[in-house]
Structures are given as C-alpha cells and as structure tokens.
C-alpha cells in the first residue's frame, strides 16, 4: 500500500493551523495524559506477579481517572449533566455485571467487553466526522485534514471489525451459537476482497470526504467482522479472543492519533501488543500458525480424519473408590484440569479433594496447559476462585519433569492437552502441540463424561487405552464428590 499521502498530508496541512482551546496548549495537559499513560504501563507491569497485581490495578484506575478528569476540565463542560448521567448509566451497568458474573463465564464477558470498546471507537470516529472542529482536525479550507481522515477511517474500520467479531465470539463462547466452524464457499476471496475494498475506501476518503464513503467503510467493516470470525471453531476461541483484544487496542490507538492524545496512543499500543502476544502464545501452545487459525475451519477438517479410524479398543473402567484408594496411598499426585472441569463447576470440590489428600500427606500439584479453558489463564482464575493457592499451580514447562515421579495423574475435563498423538502421530491434527507427559505417571485417572466424546480437536486419545489408565466415566463434579466421600471413610 502507498503511504506517501501520509507524509504529503503532514507537510501540506501543519497541525497548528487550527489551535486547540487555550488549555490544550499549556504544557500541563499533555503532561497529565502522559502520566495517565505511564500509570497504565505500571498497571500491566504489576501483573508480573500476583503479589503486585492488586496495586497495578489501582494504578490503572488512577490513570483512567486522571485521563477523564483532564479531558472534562479542559473542554467546555456545558453538557456536564448529560455526561455525568452517561457515565453513571454505563458505570452502573458495568459494575453490576462485574459483580454478578461467574468466573466460568469470563471468556464471554471479555468478548462482550471487547465489542463495546469496538463500538465506542466507531461512535467516536463518526462523532469526529460529524464535528471535526471539536477535535481540532480541520485544515485551512475548512475540510477535515487528509491525514486525520486516514486515522479516522482506520479507527472506525478496526472498531467495527472488533465489534462484530466480538459479538460472534461472544455468541460462540456463551453457547448461544454453534461452536462449529461455519464455512462459506469462497470465503477467502470474499473476505480478502472486502478487506481490500475497505482499505481502498480509506484511501479514497482522503480525496473525497462525503458521507457515503465513511458510511460504506463502517458498514463493510461490520460485515467483515462477522465473516472473519464465523468460520473459526470453538477450539480456536482463545486465539480469537486474544486477537480481538489486540484489535480493540489498535482502534484506541488510531483514535489517539486523531486526537493527538498520548494517553490513548500509549494505551492503544500496550493493549495492541498485549493481545498480539497472547495470540502468539496461544498459537504456539497449539502448534498452529496464526494464519491457519484466522483462515478457520479447524474443527471441520479434524472431524473428517477422526471418523476414519474408528475401532473398538479395550479400556478399563475405574470407580471413585479405586481413585480414592490409590491417591491416598500415593506420594505425588498431579491434577490436570481442563474446560470440562469448568463446565461442570468442579473446581471447588476438586480443591476439597486436594485438601483431603494433603491432610493425608500427599503432595498435590496442579498442571495447567496454556490452552486449557476458553481463554488464556482461564483455569488459573477458576482454581484461584476455589481457593487453590497459586504456588501449587504450575505451567507446562515447570511441571513436565515431575510426571516421571508422579504416582497418579488425575486428568479432569482435559483431553487434547494430554494426547500423546501430538508427540508421535505426524498425521494427527494436533501433531506438534506441546502436551503433558501423563503416560509417565504410574497411574492415570481420566475423568470424562463418556467414552463417546472426543476433545475439541476431534481426535481419539491413546491415553484412554493404556494399561495404567482407569477411566472415571461421570460428570466431573459428581465423580470428584464421590471420591471425596470415599477418601473420608
């Protein structure tokens, strides 16, 4: 793409052609926005350990307060009552949702929140188009500066894609829409064509600022957001949520360029890179390329290859009593939770089981795969909710070596993340994905609803049929409750 018009715009229309209100120019205001940007950086820095994280969150709140207060003070506050009401309505809704939401529903909540940021970006972009004077983006001829038009167009486009994409992600995560990949014929051509048209229109917008251009950009971006996320299956949702997180940041950054606001630019860059890094971590943990996730259709392909190799193999069924007996006698037990644990809300009773085992002198550890659950870190939050101390919870690379000494590996609601096919079977769709070496443990208990269901990748799991494996077929919560009861006898 040709960006030369950007530099041309800068030289033709200097920024100071239309000065902002007097207060904007005094040094203190940019300084305050800078401080709020720095506080946001410190908010993320705090998350490097649970101990400092709470202070970090407070820095974030202070930063936001400074940004909002600064904006209100430096702009004519004639409409303060309306603004106060708007903040009270939005804030009230947000606060109530945050209080009531269940931790298992966190992925869809985050997706819903992303959609709001996206829509807000679209509204702000359109407002800047409707009243460019207020944003100080008019040039000498009374037209919107071409450079600002690019920023505005891109901001609206990214915002709209974030909005509609997050709506689809929300519906899929909340189970209100099939998690299966929905594949339209010729979707790659349609999607690419639409994206190029949007970019072309943003370019055209610099020449012609008539309303139809901005309206078409907005409409097409809403459509492409839907189209991009619909073909992506449920298993890839952690990547999608991270990616939309990133988009919401870039949308904020684009608006920051329009407003020349450092707080927005810094935040946009932070959030944008944060989401991008999380997407990268998720892709790596599944050994998939980002492009193949975006192209979609993962669930669909796997179902075909899984269907061919359907054969009956012998497996052993265990009981709650077996599990209780063997774990009580064990020295080291490693628990591997997955999304199934979240679905049946088994985290609390699981922690109870851990407590009873610890009281019997058993060394209990939890092993969490990066893609366990429906968003990055989801399992950690659920275990924390159930009061599992975070220093008993380990990441993949930190616990991998412990399986050889483990007497029991207790897999609950996880499947693909313990599938040895990822290490050995080159034809498997999950080949190359890092998995837990549960097969090195002396005994494996596999809590699963039934033998019929397979993991989200749709592939069979050799662990089911190993000599040291006992299948505990039941709802995860019920099974763990029974084990706790058996342990207390």
């Amino acid at each position, binding site marked *: 793409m040709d960006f030369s018009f*950007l530099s041309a715009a800068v030289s033709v229309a200097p920024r100071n052609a239309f000065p902002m209100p007097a207060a904007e120019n005094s040094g203190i205001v*940019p300084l305050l926005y800078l401080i709020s940007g720095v506080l*946001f*950086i410190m908010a*993320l820095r705090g*998350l*490097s350990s*649970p101990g400092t*994280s*709470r202070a970090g*969150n407070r820095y974030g709140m202070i930063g*936001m307060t400074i*940004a909002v207060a600064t*904006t209100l003070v430096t*702009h004519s*506050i004639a409409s303060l009552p309306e*603004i106060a009401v*708007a*903040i009270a309505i*939005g804030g*009230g*809704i947000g*606060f109530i*949702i*945050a209080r009531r939401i269940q931790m298992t529903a966190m992925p869809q909540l*985050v997706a819903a929140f992303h959609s*709001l940021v996206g*829509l*807000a970006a679209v*509204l*702000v972009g*359109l407002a*800047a188009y*409707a*009243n460019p*004077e*207020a944003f100080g983006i008019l040039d000498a001829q009374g037209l919107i500066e071409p450079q600002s038009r690019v920023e505005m167009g891109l901001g609206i486009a990214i915002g709209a894609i974030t909005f509609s994409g997050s709506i689809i992600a929300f519906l899929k995560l909340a189970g209100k829409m099939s998690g299966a990949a929905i594949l339209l014929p010729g979707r790659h051509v349609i999607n690419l064509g639409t994206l190029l048209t949007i970019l072309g229109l943003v370019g055209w917008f610099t020449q012609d600022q008539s309303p139809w251009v901005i309206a078409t950009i907005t409409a097409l971006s809403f459509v492409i957001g839907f189209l991009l996320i619909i073909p992506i299956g449920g298993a890839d949702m952690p990547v999608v*949520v991270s990616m939309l997180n990133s988009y919401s940041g870039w*949308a904020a950054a684009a608006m920051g360029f329009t407003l*020349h606001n*450092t707080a*927005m*630019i810094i935040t946009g860059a*932070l*959030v944008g*890179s*944060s*989401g991008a*890094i*999380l997407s990268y*971590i998720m892709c790596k943990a599944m050994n998939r390329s980002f492009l193949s996730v975006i192209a979609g259709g993962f669930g669909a392909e796997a179902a075909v290859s899984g269907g061919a190799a359907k054969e009956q193999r012998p497996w052993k069924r265990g009981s709650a009593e077996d599990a209780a007996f063997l774990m009580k006698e064990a020295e080291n037990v490693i628990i591997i939770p997955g999304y199934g644990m979240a679905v049946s809300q088994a985290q609390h009773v699981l922690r109870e089981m851990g407590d009873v085992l610890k009281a019997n002198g058993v060394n209990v550890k939890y092993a969490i795969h990066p893609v366990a659950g429906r*968003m990055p*870190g989801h399992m950690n*939050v659920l275990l924390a909710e159930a*009061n599992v101390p*975070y*220093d*008993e*919870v380990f*990441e993949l690379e930190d616990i991998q070596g412990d399986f050889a000494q483990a007497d029991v590996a207790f897999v609950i609601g996880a499947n693909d993340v313990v599938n040895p096919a990822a290490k050995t079977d080159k034809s498997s769709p999950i080949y190359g994905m890092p998995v837990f070496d549960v097969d090195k443990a002396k005994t494996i208990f596999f809590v699963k609803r039934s033998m019929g269901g397979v993991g989200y990748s749709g592939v069979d799991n050799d662990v089911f049929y190993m000599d040291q494996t006992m299948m505990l077929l039941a709802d995860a919560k019920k099974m763990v409750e029974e084990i706790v009861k058996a342990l207390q006898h």
Partner: protein
Amino acid sequence: MDFISILSIFVLACFVGYYVVWSVTPALHTPLMAVTNAISSVIIVGALVASAAAGSPLAKVLGLGAVVLASVNIFGGFAVTQRMLAMYKKKEKK
C-alpha cells in the same frame, strides 16, 4: 504535536508493551485481558470531547453513546479484574 512525534510515542509504546506483557505471569493472563480491556476504554477521552463540544447535535449524541459504552467497560473491567486478583492467594504457612 506533529505526526512524527506522535508516531514516535506510538512505536516506543509498542516496544514497552512488548516487554511489559512478556513479563506478565501466565497465571494472570485472564486478569491481563480484563485490565487491558478496561484501559483501552481510555477511548472515552474522544467520546467526552465529542459530548462536550457545541455545534453538532449528532456528534453529541454519538459521543454520549460512546461515553456510556466506554463507562460500562471501565467500571466493569476494573471491577472484575479486582475481583479476580483478590482470589489469588498463597499457600497458608503452617
């Protein structure tokens, strides 16, 4: 500020973001997403500018709408992050 200064801030902030986010412990990735969500609602600054300015009733309505949406996110995002972070506890010393 001219375009190149703004761009410089943006590029440098991307690098800061890169290093800061890699230092976040994986156990806190969900709170990370919730808090980034809250802070990206700093877009409320643009919404406030539009709501406060006289001149275009349309811009005002759009701005106020954006203020409501961003506020949901700011209050909801920070509150839910705080709720999550409060749950992370260390092993009790015996």
